């Protein structure tokens, strides 16, 4: 459903500027300086879909167990290289575990952590942003100082502390990453709400007899959902990198459960002789984060009502 902020301006004829392949892929401003509604980012959508399918159907797709060790096959290079075996398409690590299988299972952890942390952190941020922006005054002042405090907090240090006190695991990871996320959500949503609150339909809702809670739930939240969805997609990349970093540092999921961050961590010692152990999960993270960010950029432009044709 489209949203009209003001009278829709008469759409000026925008000349189709020449765009190179990379410019259009990266969705940057065209040479004329006019931001065009970008085309659908098919490549990122395909990459994201493949990774999601990998994660969901991991037991069906993975050729081997991600945990079982076959020590006589250790550190085999990918199949297309000299010395590689066809059985191990992407090679094996120092314990002879199939890297492809670990990659497929590792996607599960990354996406599960992303889903849980974005629900928790994003949800808390949404609620705090809406309340802070709508109620205003002292409540707003206090909540926004809390947000400032959260921004100054070293999240990685805190996650390490949590891992020590609560033990490693998905729960610890999700809590640590949520604490990293909520403040950013709260601040952006609050800004949006401050603008919305001045709109006449919010004032009129009070005149019609709506309570504050009702106004927030039926008038404010539906109008910030666009922004919320864009924040979610743009933060998926942050979460995946945070999960990988924490697993790399040993504060995430304990081994031998495969996660992408842990795989890099395990492979880094032998990067000279067996680069594929660390590089392949690294490429996977890069591809996923880049795809998600490109998709998020496109979604932001798509949902921005000023860029949409009515």
């Amino acid at each position, binding site marked *: 459903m489209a*949203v009209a902020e003001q*009278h829709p301006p008469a759409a000026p004829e925008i000349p189709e500027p020449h765009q190179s392949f990379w410019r259009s892929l990266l969705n940057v401003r065209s040479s004329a300086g006019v931001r065009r509604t970008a085309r659908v980012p098919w490549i990122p959508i395909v990459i994201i879909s493949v990774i999601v399918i990998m994660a969901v159907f991991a037991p069906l797709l993975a050729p081997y167990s991600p945990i079982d060790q076959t020590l006589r096959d250790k550190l085999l290079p990918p199949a297309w290289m000299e010395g590689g075996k066809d059985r191990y398409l992407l090679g094996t690590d120092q314990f002879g575990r199939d890297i492809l299988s670990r990659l497929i299972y590792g996607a599960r952890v990354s996406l599960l952590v992303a889903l849980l942390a974005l629900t928790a952190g994003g949800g808390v941020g949404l609620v705090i942003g809406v309340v802070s922006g709508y109620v205003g005054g002292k409540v707003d002042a206090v909540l926004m100082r809390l947000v400032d405090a959260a921004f100054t907090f070293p999240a990685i240090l805190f996650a390490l502390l949590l891992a020590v006190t609560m033990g490693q695991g998905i729960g610890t990871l999700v809590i640590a990453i949520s604490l990293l996320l909520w403040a950013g959500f709260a601040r952006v949503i609050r800004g949006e709400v401050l603008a919305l609150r001045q709109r006449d*339909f919010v004032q*009129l809702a009070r*005149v019609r*007899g709506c309570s504050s809670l009702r106004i927030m739930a*039926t*008038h404010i939240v*539906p*109008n910030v959902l666009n922004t919320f969805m864009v924040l979610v997609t743009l933060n998926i990349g942050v979460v995946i990198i945070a999960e990988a970093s924490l697993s790399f540092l040993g504060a995430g999921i304990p081994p031998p459960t495969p996660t992408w961050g842990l795989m890099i961590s395990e492979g880094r010692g032998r990067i000279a002789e067996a680069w594929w152990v660390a590089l392949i999960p690294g490429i996977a993270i890069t591809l996923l984060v880049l795809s998600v960010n490109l998709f998020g950029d496109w979604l932001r432009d798509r949902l921005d009502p000023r860029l949409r044709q009515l």
Partner: protein
Amino acid sequence: MSAAAEKQLLRVANVRKYFAFTKGILFSRTLGHVKAVDDISFEIRAGETLGLVGESGCGKTTISRMILNLEEPTEGYILLDDEPIHGLEGEALKAYRTKVQAVFQDPWSSLNPRMTAGRIIAESLIVTKWGDKDKIAARVAELLKQVGLRPDQAQQYPHEFSGGQRQRVALAAALASSPKLIVLDEPVSALDVSIRAQMMNLLKDIQAERNVAYLLVAHDLATVRHMSDHTVVMYLGKIVEKAPTQALFDDVRHPYTKALFSAVLIARANQEDEEIVLQGEVPSPLNPPSGCRFHTRCPYVMPRCSQEEPKLRDVTPGHAVACHLFD
């Protein structure tokens, strides 16, 4: 109370609204007051229209926000059917909300873009638990017909309507709870000139049908003349002239009102009035001029104007002016 006073629907009595100008949030201190509305009194009778005229910043919007119970007056009181409207809570406030409604100027901002027209119109019915779904749907259809839209347009979203249609939806939403008074804050000034007359006639038809009173806030004299029975002219938070609309348009007294009339071309019976073109800006309401607030821009300024504040008094029965020229 006299028989005439009994018909009064809304009474605004000696209302003042000062906004504190503060610094700091948690430990704030007051630096001064903006006297947005300063000792204003007027009445609206059931089924009639009162026009409130003045340039921007004169306190029109503050008055209408106080009547809508979105702001509390600093001093004075507002009565609806002889009951004070401020300090209401819970059910009493909800009951008040059904009696006084509003239509705002900008139809692009006054409708929630995420709700269908039907849901917007039904809002006050849903809030007051007026009836079940079918009953509300029937009422919405009836309201849409009344404002000149089709009942099936209840399913459309605001962006699917034109400006004039949107304003009709806003009006239908205001009418849903059968209010006694509707505050019309510049209801036609955002519309194309070609559809203004339609909207004004619709408002008049609805008033005749439902005996609803209007408070018409406007800066456009033509609209006020067409719509209102009484007119109040404000300048910097004060009433400068108050009269039945016909009497005011026939015989403008206050120099500020004359200036307003000079600024627009209006066909009037006695056009021999001198033209007044105001110089300079409106003074700041943070620090209004002493005496008569208009004396800094008035072409007929006298020495006493800067010392003594003129009282609003009748120059002819029903026609009140606040100016030393008529003492």
